[in-house]
């Protein structure tokens, strides 16, 4: 018999378990739960995209693709960034199609991090970055963003976290879990610090299409930033394709080829069926996407107003599909609030601390649910608070 504990690598033992797991286990087996704990759209992938996937199967496209992804898809990705943000990436050697953005983030970290390198990340943030940095041998350096500054990262904060060991910074706006966005001037502050210290920026912009009251600024569209940025994005959120797993990375050819090296020896390529769907999504998906954005925006207004009315202070989230209310007024901790709310009223939310310590005292509530569900959720929260 092997001793499992001794068998596991030292590195895996240093990776903290996901805080989300606990709530997932609690919800399992409960009936009639309204879940605001979901990090994906409630829309089903638009039919024309699913149809393209089906058609590709009918035609027998079930082989590997080029490691970098189908050239038609890389061209469509490149075109969309040219059109949306005026940034140009050569589909031949500057675009890599991955199995979701998560893989792209992992590749980027593994391609650049040496043992002892520090990688700065702003918290609260998506749960995978920190473990990703640890698994790649680096040291995560979290910077806390605050409610007062609507969870934006400032140049000053970044400057304060830079040491001579800093290798890179992970930017993720529009932000999961807060719904925060960075305006152009906020990003320019970051760019100044990046230039001064020769940092690499890994910018995860998977929620770029989901912004309300103002268009997203792509980090690599800022002056000089294209050469020091690995841009990550995908179709999961914009086209409701989470389970199809299509993401991509774009950046300087030297960095993309290093990422490709790992990708070709591990994942090989993203699934061809999903890539075929992604081509259709990028070529003909604009109208469906806009309709989904309009619908999210309505729910956002409705839900955020509702939370504030209940005394759960919530700043206006201008991106993604999350509201991030504070539970301070209730005198409860966010974990306590989340657990009791689930047990008493069967509404699932995720406590902010899961996304970094500075998220304590807040809840991540996803409004990617039908309006009727949001309405019932607000009623149940009201009942819970009374």
């Amino acid at each position, binding site marked *: 018999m092997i001793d499992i504990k001794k068998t596991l690598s030292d590195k895996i033992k240093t990776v903290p378990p996901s805080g*989300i797991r606990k709530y997932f286990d609690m919800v399992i087996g409960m009936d009639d739960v309204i879940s605001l704990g979901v990090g994906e759209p409630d829309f089903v992938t638009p039919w024309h995209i699913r149809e393209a996937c089906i058609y590709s199967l009918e035609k027998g496209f079930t082989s590997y693709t080029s490691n970098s992804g189908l050239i038609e898809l890389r061209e469509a990705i490149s075109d969309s960034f040219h059109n949306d943000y005026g940034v140009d990436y050569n589909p031949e050697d500057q675009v890599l199609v991955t199995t979701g953005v998560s893989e792209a983030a992992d590749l980027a970290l593994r391609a650049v991090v040496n043992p002892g390198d520090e990688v700065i990340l702003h918290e609260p943030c998506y749960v995978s970055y920190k473990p990703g940095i640890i698994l790649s041998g680096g040291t995560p350096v979290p910077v806390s963003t605050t409610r007062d500054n609507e969870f934006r990262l400032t140049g000053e904060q970044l400057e304060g976290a830079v040491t001579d060991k800093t290798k890179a910074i992970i930017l993720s706006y529009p932000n999961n879990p807060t719904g925060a966005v960075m305006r152009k001037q906020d990003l320019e502050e970051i760019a100044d610090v990046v230039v001064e210290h020769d940092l690499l920026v890994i910018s995860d912009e998977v929620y770029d299409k989901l912004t309300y009251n103002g268009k997203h600024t792509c980090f690599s569209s800022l002056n000089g930033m294209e050469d020091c940025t690995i841009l990550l994005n995908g179709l999961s959120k914009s086209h409701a394709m989470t389970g199809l797993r299509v993401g991509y990375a774009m950046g300087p050819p030297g960095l993309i080829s290093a990422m490709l090296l790992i990708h070709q020896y591990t994942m090989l390529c993203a699934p061809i069926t999903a890539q075929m769907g992604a081509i259709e999504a990028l070529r003909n998906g604009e109208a469906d996407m806009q309709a989904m954005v309009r619908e999210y925006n309505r729910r956002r207004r409705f839900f955020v107003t509702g939370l504030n009315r209940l005394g759960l202070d919530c700043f206006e989230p201008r991106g993604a599909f999350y509201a991030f209310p504070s539970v301070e007024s209730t005198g409860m901790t966010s974990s306590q609030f989340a657990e009791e709310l689930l047990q008493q009223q069967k509404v699932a939310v995720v406590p902010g601390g899961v996304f970094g310590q500075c998220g304590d005292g807040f809840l991540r509530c996803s409004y990617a649910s039908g309006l009727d569900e949001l309405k019932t959720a607000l009623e149940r929260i009201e009942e819970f608070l009374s």
Partner: protein
Amino acid sequence: MNEILEIIEQDPKKDPSEIALLTGYSEKEVQTRIKELEDSGIIRKYKAVIDWDRVGEEYVYAIIELKITLGDRSGYDKIAHRIASFNEVRSIRLISGDHDLSLTVRGQSMKDVAFFVAEKIATLDQVQNTVTHFVLKTYKEDGVPLFEQEKSRRLAISP
């Protein structure tokens, strides 16, 4: 304006106060705009989509295509308005292709519908010929599927 219409098209019963929350307009503004939309005829009518089969009401529907011979000075509008006046006619459209007008007709029985076509429609001077397709089953009506949709398999909690 279109935003309000999009919401009302989905759910005409929605309260103006809720539409205000969804759009960011004030409740008063929403009421004024809806009134304008009604007065100008942009909103024609508020209707429910009913699955009559479930009620047990055995309506018979038919799609009827008509070939029209235009008279000296009358265009399609005139004959279309005339046919539209029958209560049995649920919709009428000018179409391209082999036929000119396409009607949806509702009756209490097949005999009822057949009779209506033979007596009221085929007898009109301008109607050259008719083709009647009886509806066997309706799967989607006005954008609303009438069959059960599969439940979402989305996990309750995900990152």
